[in-house]
């Protein structure tokens, strides 16, 4: 078992990661400096920062958003993601 599941659900099935609003982002890179999970990646050219590894993002963690001065980071709706995880678990249980 690796850490690529969350409560038994494959991490790939859980849509939890930041979205960068490029209209607000000033590429200060504070989020990338903060995140220890290599969710972000700096690039040459435009945009200079992307969410390159979304499944590295810790499910329900939004800590990087607090480092963002221009409020350019957003995350999915938590209760909806919780419901989705519960639904997938129930389905997988029913399918044995």
């Amino acid at each position, binding site marked *: 078992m690796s*850490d690529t599941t969350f*409560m038994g659900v494959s991490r790939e099935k859980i849509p939890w990661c930041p979205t960068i609003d490029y209209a607000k982002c000033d590429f200060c890179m504070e989020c990338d400096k903060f995140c220890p999970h290599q969710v972000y990646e700096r690039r040459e050219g435009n945009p200079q920062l992307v969410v390159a590894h979304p499944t590295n993002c810790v499910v*329900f*963690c939004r800590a990087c958003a607090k480092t*963002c001065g221009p409020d350019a980071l957003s995350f999915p709706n938590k209760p909806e993601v*919780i419901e989705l995880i519960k639904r997938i678990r129930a389905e997988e249980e029913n399918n044995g």
Partner: protein
Amino acid sequence: MAERFAVLPCNGLDKLAGPLAREIALAVVEACKGELICPVLYNNLSARYAKALELPLIVIDGCGTRCATKLATEHGLKMVRKLQVAETLKELGESDGGSLTPDAERLALCQRLAEKLLSAPDEGAASNTEVQFAEPVEYGSVTHDKFIFRVPMQDYLFNENHCWAHVVGNRARVGISDYMQQQLTDLTFCEPPRIGARIEQFGEVGNVESVKSVADILSPVSGHVVAVNPIAAETPEIINEDPYVRGWVAELELTDLESDRQLLMDGPAYLDFVRRQAAQYKPNR
């Protein structure tokens, strides 16, 4: 005559939350004939406000970067009440966009928030709970290199974000696990939630900062905050020393434990989870 307060607000100007924090601060100071602390001057010349800071302190943050709270913490100031404007706007369903000059409607909102702050209970005020949270009788442990990660075997529930809930009746205390506190290393700051706040499962029930990192405390259970641990807020190292008992962060009145349980582990299951995590754990100190 209302109780007098010193007020340390956000000094931001580039987002609406900053100007609103300023308006709320002015309204509070005016209503209670208190003292306004300029964060910029305080940062440069703290002695200037020594007299003003003999009053109980209210801190008003604009956005999630919480500069005012951090400034207060760096100077060892005790905060009796706090408000974060961006979060409050969200809770009220109000927009945080638009003109940086607050209009009449927003000024009225600031006035209401100031009145609410003045009538709020102090942080860490004693709750009316009679619930007794007994110490764990049995711990399991995982040993990895020189580290030993402990887990209470009964009465505690855990999420995969390494936060625990100790449930007694319809109440629960929440905190961070031994594994998480050791990963974070020495804690320097603990911000508990606001008393009365409604917390969803996996919602933020405070946050902790260490010399190494910052982490949100993601609540294993949903409910209303009925008490916070003033000792953890004042001396966060208590969480390093005793994460499961004296290092609790907040106490919640539970609203949907049966549903919450679906995404929680008991002690033995969490111990197993920690064992798998520890196998990949590369301490960086």
